[in-house]
């Protein structure tokens, strides 16, 4: 059964016009997100995953600019909306949680005031009802003693608690889409487990779709239904989470998965199969496929032409002239 399409990003381009040249941070990205689906957008620094998410909310700052494409959210193009219309959407229909809960929260307002602000802006309630709703939300995200915590400032809370407060704020208006940008990266592993559990739980309860952005492939395996792998502003592989881990066909995805130290393998203290080299400078991108200088399978064709994102089997898209065969046993 095909679920209702919530967000469709079509050929989105976000370029940064700097003094040193144009940086194509997001270079023609296509994404599809259905209702209550979790889409993992994964990649290393500089792959454009954060800029892509900010572009969806139209929050990219100067010198960054939209350079084409469409962002169809519930059937309407967000790029054609006025700033005022966007403000109504942000926080109510699309909410976002960021990596650093300390900088994303305002240090001079209490946690309660900040969560309540979102409710007051987007919902037709009076202050008393908003406060009640806020305390309910703080309770829902597992903040102990929410009535007391309502009056605390961000610095009085731990990283995990702050991230819970951020989630309370994001979920307070029952958004259709939640964008989570490295939301657990700054947290310790036991706290990360708590927050992921909370996000999964809320996602089921409120039926929100999540665009889950991370650099950590293991988190994608835990959270996502579908995965998009980004490299240098382009999607290089797009498939169900199962396929990405069991049958990765792009040499980059394949290489990344092989290079992560295993939690099962007995062959410890052995060299890891690393991807050679490093990401190119965004000011001097290689000709042809952006990954070819690091790719063990690169041919002349890869050095000359940029491959298209092609469907190689139903629902599995790969941007490569020579998709990896025989990927058996890659997942650990």
């Amino acid at each position, binding site marked *: 059964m095909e679920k209702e399409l919530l967000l469709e990003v079509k050929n989105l381009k976000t370029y940064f016009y700097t003094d040193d040249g144009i940086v194509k941070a997001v270079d023609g990205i296509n994404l599809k997100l259905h209702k209550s689906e979790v889409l993992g957008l994964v990649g*290393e*620094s500089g792959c454009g995953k954060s800029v892509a998410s900010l572009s969806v909310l139209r929050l990219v700052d100067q010198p960054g600019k939209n350079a084409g494409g469409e962002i169809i959210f519930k059937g309407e193009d967000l790029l054609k909306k006025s700033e005022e219309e966007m403000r109504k959407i942000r926080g109510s229909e699309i909410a976002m949680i960021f990596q650093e809960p300390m900088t994303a929260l305002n240090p001079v307002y209490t946690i309660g005031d900040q969560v309540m602000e979102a409710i007051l802006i987007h919902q037709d309630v009076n202050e008393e009802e908003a406060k009640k709703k806020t305390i309910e939300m703080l309770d829902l995200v597992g903040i*102990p003693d929410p009535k007391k915590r309502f009056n605390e400032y961000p610095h009085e809370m*731990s990283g*995990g*608690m702050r991230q819970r407060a951020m989630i309370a704020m994001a979920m307070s208006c029952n958004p259709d889409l939640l964008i989570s940008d490295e939301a657990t990266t700054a947290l*310790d*592993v*036991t*706290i*990360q*487990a*708590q927050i*992921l*559990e909370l996000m999964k739980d809320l996602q089921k309860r409120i039926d929100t779709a999540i665009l889950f952005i991370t*650099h*950590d*492939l*293991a*988190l994608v*395996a*835990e959270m*996502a239904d579908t995965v998009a792998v980004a490299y240098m502003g382009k999607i290089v592989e797009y498939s169900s*989470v*199962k396929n990405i*881990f*069991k049958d990765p066909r792009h040499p980059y995805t394949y*290489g*990344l*998965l092989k*290079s*992560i*130290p*295993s*939690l099962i393998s*007995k062959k*410890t*203290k052995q*060299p*890891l*199969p*690393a*991807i*050679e080299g*490093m*990401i190119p400078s965004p000011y001097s991108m290689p000709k042809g496929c952006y990954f070819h200088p*690091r790719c063990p399978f690169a041919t002349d064709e890869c050095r000359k032409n940029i491959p298209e994102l092609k469907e190689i089997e139903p629902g599995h898209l790969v941007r490569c002239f020579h998709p990896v065969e025989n990927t058996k046993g890659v*997942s*650990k």
Partner: protein
Amino acid sequence: MKKSILEVKNLKKYFPVVGGVFSKPIAWVKAVDDISFSIFEGETFSLVGESGSGKTTTGKTILKLIKPTAGQIIAEDIDITNFSASEMRPLRRDMQIIFQDPYGSLNPRLPVGEIIREPLVVHRVGNKKEQEERVVEAMQVVGLRPGYLHRYPHEFSGGQRQRIGIARAIVLNPKFIVADEPVSALDASIQSQVLNLLMDLQQKLSLTYLFIAHNLAVVRHVSDRIGVMYLGKLMEITDTMELFNNPLHPYTQALLSAIPIPDPEIKKERIILAGDIPSPINPPSGCVFRTRCIYAQDICAEKTPQLVDIGNGHFTACHFVKKGGKTEFTKKS
């Protein structure tokens, strides 16, 4: 019998919290609170734990970069706990450190060649020509082109900077290196390159590592033995495989179960710890983990469990883990 290169006995490091008009200590942060362990020659011993567990402080205290509050640090049978800076100097040739942050740990005003040469200058090793030769050699060993000698740190990527930090650490031919989160600031594809380099250097130069990290998959891959820290104390020490196959301390069990697995088809039972790590200024009485432990009983608040060998060099600090690894856990009512 394995020879220990470093022994730590009842090490404590308390940092003062100052307050009041006269800036007197009003409280103490117990960053490291009575820990003991040995590191054997040629091995990689890892300290794992979450932020605030005291693993970095332990690493720095061992190198005497921070003065210990109490306890003993014995390097190759010499008690260096109370050595002065000048007494430490000859020993520092053998003990080096690699830092987490490849941006903050390199002087931005010095070219790479000078950064790597500095330890040789400080320790007056050879004349300038010999020093330059050793710098070039160190750069080649870590996979940096010697042509980069005159470039500055900002011209390099994170992974390359970490290689510069490693070259600086090995240029004196040390025996022992503290690697403090050496790959956690790096991207996944670069992380494996640097881990391979560290493992390769260990073989080539017969190095002993104290490896400090929070990424358990990385630690599992590189370590021979692992010590698990929580709130300034060691909870468990044992061989890598034993720790992952047979974790005995409830904290280790929870920590391992919290690791995300890069396989969507494995859904594991997770022990979700309630609450946050308590403040090291006012740690819980008795066992420091008891406030989050699902098995905590009355005795845990009253008595601090000692880190004891329950057999085959497997140490745990829990009242309910007995000799031979038998556990007597009962869930809190």
